[in-house]
């Protein structure tokens, strides 16, 4: 007679393993956050945040990088938001599922899967070289907007789809045109979902390095205009770490990067929860 392992025993053994692995995974996350915080938070002071890097970052603060990051995010959003929300509106309100929408969706999904290094290559070839914009916040922001586009389209589309159909019907029955209905009824109702997508995009911008380093360059000077090159926090961190310039500053920058992204992501989840609660 063949012996069979008691299935109850197997179940218990498996359960222990599963919980163990899961705990391990979540443990990694907390470990990363704690480690960075412990090593990096002490470095952050008001001075650190508001003074410029000195001596290639060996000392001084990160102010110029914070400014460059903000400028870059601004350019990226100014392009990606209208494009993204416009595309989402078109897909949900103005067309029915057809070959047109399939192509648009396919393009959007493929774009979402393109690794940042290829985006960086493209940004370099197109914005920096072909369009002669050179290494600049402009090149970086425009390339970055392409990276953000799929996310904004996807989240906006979901938010708009979630708006109850009856609201649109009622608006039409009151003699209101489609575009007016979109701007006065649909978008306001979808706003929290759309904003969540934008907030998550900001988080991605902050952490992105490969795209930026090939398009915005790495000049440590405070950028005077969008045509100037600028070094974002992520790029600065990468260079500090890679070249071993200053470990304390590297940790400090890492802490700012990680914690600001974490706070932004948590903020986005919070907005989404409020939105879902209202429905």
């Amino acid at each position, binding site marked *: 007679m063949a012996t069979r392992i008691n299935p109850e025993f197997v179940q218990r053994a498996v359960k222990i393993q599963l919980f163990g692995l899961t705990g391990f995974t979540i443990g990694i996350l907390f470990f990363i956050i704690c480690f960075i915080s412990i090593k990096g938070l002490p470095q952050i002071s008001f001075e650190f945040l508001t003074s410029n890097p000195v001596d290639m970052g060996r000392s001084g603060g990160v102010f110029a990088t914070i400014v460059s990051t903000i400028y870059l995010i601004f350019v990226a959003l100014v392009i990606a938001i209208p494009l993204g929300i416009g595309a989402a509106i078109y897909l949900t309100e103005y067309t*029915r599922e057809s070959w047109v929408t399939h192509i648009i969706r396919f393009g959007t999904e493929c774009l979402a899967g393109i690794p940042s290094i290829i985006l960086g290559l493209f940004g370099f070839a197109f914005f920096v070289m072909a369009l002669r914009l050179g290494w600049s916040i402009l090149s970086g922001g425009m390339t970055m907007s392409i990276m953000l586009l799929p996310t904004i389209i996807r989240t906006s589309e979901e938010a708009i789809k979630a708006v*109850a159909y*009856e*609201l649109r*019907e*009622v*608006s*039409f*029955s*009151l*003699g*209101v*045109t489609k575009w*007016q209905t979109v701007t*006065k*009824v649909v978008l*306001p*109702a979808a706003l929290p979902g759309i904003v969540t997508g934008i907030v998550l995009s900001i988080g991605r911008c902050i952490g992105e390095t490969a795209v930026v380093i090939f398009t915005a360059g790495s000049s440590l000077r405070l950028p005077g205009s969008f045509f100037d090159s600028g070094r974002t926090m992520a790029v600065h961190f990468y260079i500090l770490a890679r070249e071993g310039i200053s470990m304390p500053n590297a940790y400090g920058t890492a802490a700012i990067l990680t914690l600001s992204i974490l706070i932004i992501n948590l903020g986005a989840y919070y907005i989404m929860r409020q939105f879902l609660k209202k429905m």
Partner: protein
Amino acid sequence: MSEKIVVKDFNFYYSNHKVLSDLNLTVKANSILGIMGPAKSGKTTLLRVLNRLCDLIPNIHVDGEVFLDGENILLPDLNVDKLRTKVGMVFDKPVPLPRSIFENLAYSPRIHGMKDKRKLEELVEKSLKLAILWDEVKDRLHEPATKLSGGQQQRLCIARTLAMEPEVILLDEPTYGLDPISTLKIEQALQVLKKNYTIVLVSNNTWQVARISDNVAFLLMGELIEYGSASEIFTVPKDKRTNDYISGRFG
């Protein structure tokens, strides 16, 4: 009384499926036409044709004519937005816009150009009074409309339609699921409104139709079985099917 709406040889197809066939009826001005019939008889579809809300449904095809004050409203180049301000609709479920009570009513007039604050306030008050809602909300016009009860919300929807100063009001099962007091208030409001508006009411509730209509149309499976004054239809119906429906043998 003149004929406000005339439906002539009207057929409605949804994806090659005939929903309404050879419809011929008229709606007299300043009267209430009650359209009754069991589920899936095409009543709601007919209503939605009258304000061209049927345009929202994909894959439809119509032939025949529908005249409003002599003009064929089925013509493709008709300004449907303008039509919908003349022919207002109240749905079977109250759908307040996520705004204040005042803003719900001011929504359409504002979009169509009314900017004067005082005029808007007068319009809001007048509409709410006609919908028998004014006394209940006059002190909280700027509270969210979603805080109102179901019956109040439906009266708000009626007031919102009235704020467009339409000529025709379409109502699709307006008191469905509402408490008896709200139902009564709405029926009372309609009796008063018919003096200045033309009203078309769709209802599965034959008693309601009998209570308030001047004329009645009985629709069954997309066909107009019988049309006449309310008193005729409910006392001496000409068609056996009408009789069966009224006496509750089906539907």
